[in-house]
């Protein structure tokens, strides 16, 4: 074996983990060379345009496609009358059959914006023109999108992410508490808003269905697609070289891929379906609305006796989902009694799914706002309140923590922010017409690794080819995995070739749950270990080894494994106009060993911007009368613009996960989580008025 130590980006080549290396595909991206799913050239490519339902509930009574079929360039129309029949059992291991996948299977319309037809033509423009000529008649039925915890259809959520917590006697502890908080918090539906609209290019190559698709999980998507279309997995291959963000919205088989596959098979042509921005909003899943009740009870010294967290969220009648708002309540603080409940209300909406820290983002807003309210009633520093409730073992599970660095995050964050000396009473600082306030919040975020496989080949030239069905959705996974492989093989960066983004490589976890790098990194470490052992006997090269981590991961002891953060915010409020602006955000994160500080910091900073948007701007607006999503574009669905983003200081505290071979935890989503509560708490500190409903719109803040 040879090593090739040399300077890359001014850095030594080994060790690679810990080096702030820029993205390996960075130059391709900024120069336009990087190829996304819509950039791939395919001969005889046809283009599909989606037709969506304009009613929220009803039955398609007729489709007149004569004008469409006569329109220039139109090749065909696919709707429920001629669509391929799909396997109705297809779904996810967590949530069961997913009715959202059953596109064009019958005449039912169950949410506004549901795809009801695909028009395929020689060019995208001709497809769109043909789609506009399609006349779809619907018999409209009364719809129900009125969400609330007292809805008559409310029922318990699935428990695939663990049972409700029922530790101690909540009511008795509340009754015995010196101070009690009992408040209701509400969060709206939010969308992932990935920059790259979902796009798929599909063609048949012999018996094999080939797809280039924007997704977060090439292997998982291929497996689901195979099940959905009744094909053996080896006859489905899904690739994706570059993906322009996912944030949860590309973890499953998207409508673009289902519709393009149907068209490619039925019309025997390569077909591309690129969703428009509006279609991304209308046809790819959002985070559900939540309505949460948090009850906290503490003794006069601030020791928690009771944590009650009951969360209700909306789902579609077509698919189950768990927005696990109560995850943090089970693990972040010690309390004598902890009781959690998760309920769902099925409505006539697009099925909901994972969006940017599912569960924890809305859940932490409720719990960490309530903690601030408790500190207020205790007349205590909210930071100190969190110091006094540090658990020694899992508060509900009783299991040991692997590496719990929450207090370190609080301490380091407070120091960097300048928290000490804060007057904890509200409405004490005025600067001109502005009120100024500060607030903080913290969170945990579940971390683990999921089974994956990797193949490493020792090449005759002394280099190594690492293949894993990972995917880089813009986070820098490609760069991180190459560093992990170089270190695992004990070679320089240049000696590693990395192949990702191809389902044919073998089973691998998705870029989801903040667990891509932990899951894939482990598999690469395992394969490197096995390959190096194999090379000791001096075999003829090339030689390949494939390793799977299922057994190692499943044999780990049961323990509480979490990332942690503490977030501090300073805001200004103009009480005359209700405008809230964020001046400063500081986040300290315990996310295990950091593979690449440049990229992880960037990801956490981006996550905090998302948290800021969730606090102040993001909100899917449904028109109650029509049942439809009315702000389905970037002009009307607001998130932070550059001008809204202040100085953000995101950094790590020293951390190492002992149950991971590389010491890793997932740093992906935690950046988003505690920000909304920190900002809401700062708005209270500025104004004296609690904000229990997101986003903190100006009409909720304005004073008479």
């Amino acid at each position, binding site marked *: 074996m040879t090593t090739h130590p040399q300077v890359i980006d001014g850095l030594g080549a080994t060790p690679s983990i810990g080096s702030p290396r820029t993205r390996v595909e960075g130059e391709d991206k900024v120069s336009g060379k990087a190829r996304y799913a819509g950039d791939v050239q395919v001969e005889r490519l046809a283009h599909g345009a989606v037709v969506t339902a304009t009613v929220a509930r009803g039955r398609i009574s007729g489709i007149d496609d004569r004008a469409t079929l006569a329109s220039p360039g139109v090749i065909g129309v696919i709707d429920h009358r001629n669509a391929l029949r799909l396997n109705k059992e297809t779904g996810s291991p967590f949530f069961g059959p997913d009715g959202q996948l059953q596109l064009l299977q019958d005449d039912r319309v169950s949410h506004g914006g549901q795809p009801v037809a695909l028009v395929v033509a020689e060019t995208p*423009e001709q497809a769109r023109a043909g789609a506009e000529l399609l006349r779809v008649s619907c018999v409209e039925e009364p719809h129900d999108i009125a969400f609330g915890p007292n809805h008559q259809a409310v029922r318990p959520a699935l428990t695939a992410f663990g049972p409700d917590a029922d530790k101690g006697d909540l009511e008795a502890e509340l009754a015995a508490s010196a101070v009690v908080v009992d408040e209701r918090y509400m969060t709206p539906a939010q969308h992932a808003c990935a920059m790259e609209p979902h796009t798929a290019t599909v063609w048949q190559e012999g018996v094999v269905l080939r797809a280039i698709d924007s997704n977060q999980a090439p292997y998982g998507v291929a497996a689901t697609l195979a099940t959905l279309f009744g094909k053996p997995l080896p006859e489905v291959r899904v690739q994706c070289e570059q993906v322009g963000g996912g944030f949860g919205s590309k973890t499953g088989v998207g409508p673009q891929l289902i519709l393009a596959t149907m068209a490619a098979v039925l019309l025997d042509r390569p077909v591309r379906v690129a969703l428009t921005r509006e279609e991304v909003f209308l046809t790819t899943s959002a985070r559900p609305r939540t309505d949460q009740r948090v009850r906290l009870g503490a003794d006069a010294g601030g020791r928690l006796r009771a944590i009650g967290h009951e969360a209700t969220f909306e789902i579609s009648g077509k698919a189950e989902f768990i927005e696990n708002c109560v995850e943090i309540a089970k693990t972040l603080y010690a309390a004598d009694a902890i009781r959690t409940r998760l309920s769902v209300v099925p409505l006539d909406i697009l099925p909901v799914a994972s969006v940017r820290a599912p569960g924890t983002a809305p859940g932490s807003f409720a719990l960490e706002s309530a903690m601030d309210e408790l500190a207020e009633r205790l007349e205590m520093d909210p930071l100190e309140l969190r110091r006094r409730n540090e658990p020694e073992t899992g508060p509900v599970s009783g299991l040991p923590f692997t590496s719990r660095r929450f207090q370190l995050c609080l301490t380091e964050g407070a120091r960097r922010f300048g928290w000490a000396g804060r007057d904890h009473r509200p409405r004490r600082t005025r600067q001109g017409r502005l009120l100024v306030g500060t607030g903080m919040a913290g969170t945990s975020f579940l971390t683990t690794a999921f089974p994956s496989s990797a193949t490493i080949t020792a090449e005759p030239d002394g280099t190594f080819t690492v293949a894993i069905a990972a995917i880089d959705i813009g986070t820098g996974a490609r760069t991180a995995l190459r560093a992990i492989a170089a270190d695992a093989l004990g070679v320089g960066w240049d000696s590693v070739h990395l192949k990702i983004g191809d389902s044919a490589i073998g089973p691998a976890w998705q870029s989801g749950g903040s667990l891509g790098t932990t899951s894939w990194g482990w598999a690469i470490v395992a394969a490197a270990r096995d390959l190096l052992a194999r090379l000791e006997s001096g075999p003829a090269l090339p030689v390949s080894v494939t390793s799977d981590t299922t057994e190692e991961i499943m044999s780990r002891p049961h323990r509480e494994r979490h990332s942690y953060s503490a977030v501090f915010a300073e805001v200004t409020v103009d009480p005359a106009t209700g405008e809230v602006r964020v001046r400063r955000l500081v986040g300290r994160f315990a996310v295990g060993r950091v593979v690449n500080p440049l990229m992880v910091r960037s990801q956490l900073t981006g996550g905090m911007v998302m948290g800021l948007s969730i606090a102040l701007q993001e909100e899917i607006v449904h028109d109650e009368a029509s049942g439809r999503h009315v702000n389905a574009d970037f002009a009307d669905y607001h998130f932070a613009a550059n001008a809204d983003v202040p100085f953000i200081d995101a950094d790590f505290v020293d951390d190492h996960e002992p149950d991971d071979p590389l010491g890793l935890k997932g740093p992906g989503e935690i950046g988003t989580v505690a920000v909304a509560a920190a900002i809401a708490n700062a708005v209270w500190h500025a104004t004296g008025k609690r904000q229990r409903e997101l986003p903190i719109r*100006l009409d909720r803040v304005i004073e008479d």
Partner: protein
Amino acid sequence: MKEFAYSRANGVREALVMVAEQENGRFLGGGTNLVDLMKRGVEAPDLLVDVRSLPLAGVREDDDGDVVIGATTTNSDAAAHPEVRRRYPALSQAVLAGASGQLRNVATVAGNLLQRTRCAFFADLSTACNKRVPGSGCAALAGVHHNHAILGTSPSCVATNPSDMAVSLMLFDAVVHYETLDGEGEIPLSRFYRPVGDTPHVETALPAGALITSVRLPRATAGERSRYRKVRERASYAFATVSVAADLEVRAGRVHEVRIALGGVASHPWRARIAEEELRGGPAVPERFRAAAEAELAAARALPHNGYKVTLARNLIQSVLTEIAG
């Protein structure tokens, strides 16, 4: 999107003839609003006559000392012009508060005056909208209207005009100059936008087929202290919730001259003449500013979800006048 023809005119008269000869022809400026609406099918012209190469760009001072902004001047150029910034700062501030740098670099001044409402139902062909299809109804009345109008509305329409620029032009009593095949004409901005009534689809008093050639800012209305403040849900790239353009001259503690225009509250930029009248000659104090604003807003008709705009408009008028009064 319907197919359409595109032509580039080399002279104003040629442009006017081109549009006159086509039943459904439209002038194309920056296209930042028209083209979006064409993509959605809300606008469906058969012909676009591109007027950007006509000699209508640029800002100049005329013989009377008025500032004349050519119709195809970009929003960016209008905002950056030294005379605009010096004499009409509220106009420069308003333009810069709108859209994004990229959009302002292509959007024209005339196009800005003619931009359509951002009401979601106006842009959605599958819903009722009297502005888009006269007589079809108004989905906003019983639907989403969080950001809709509170002044000058009718049962036919509660949409707002989204322009920032036009609010400040209203403040300065700007005059719109146009040309038709019959010759030149002008309309004060105060009469440019038509009341909603039961014809919300008729938005301006511009004659059919007319091409706006310039917008004139009278020398007499210049206001070096004038200000524009825009309230919105994020710091950039959002339409106004409510905006205020104002100018105020205080002499010996009393209001000598005052002008106030509001954005985001009506189907057109709203000149707050009742408030102005209330203030003139009176003490220049915040309580009076607030009372005058309340007088103006007494006629406000709020819907179930936009009542906060009444409070906001009042507070904003008070805040901006207080700021100018120093």
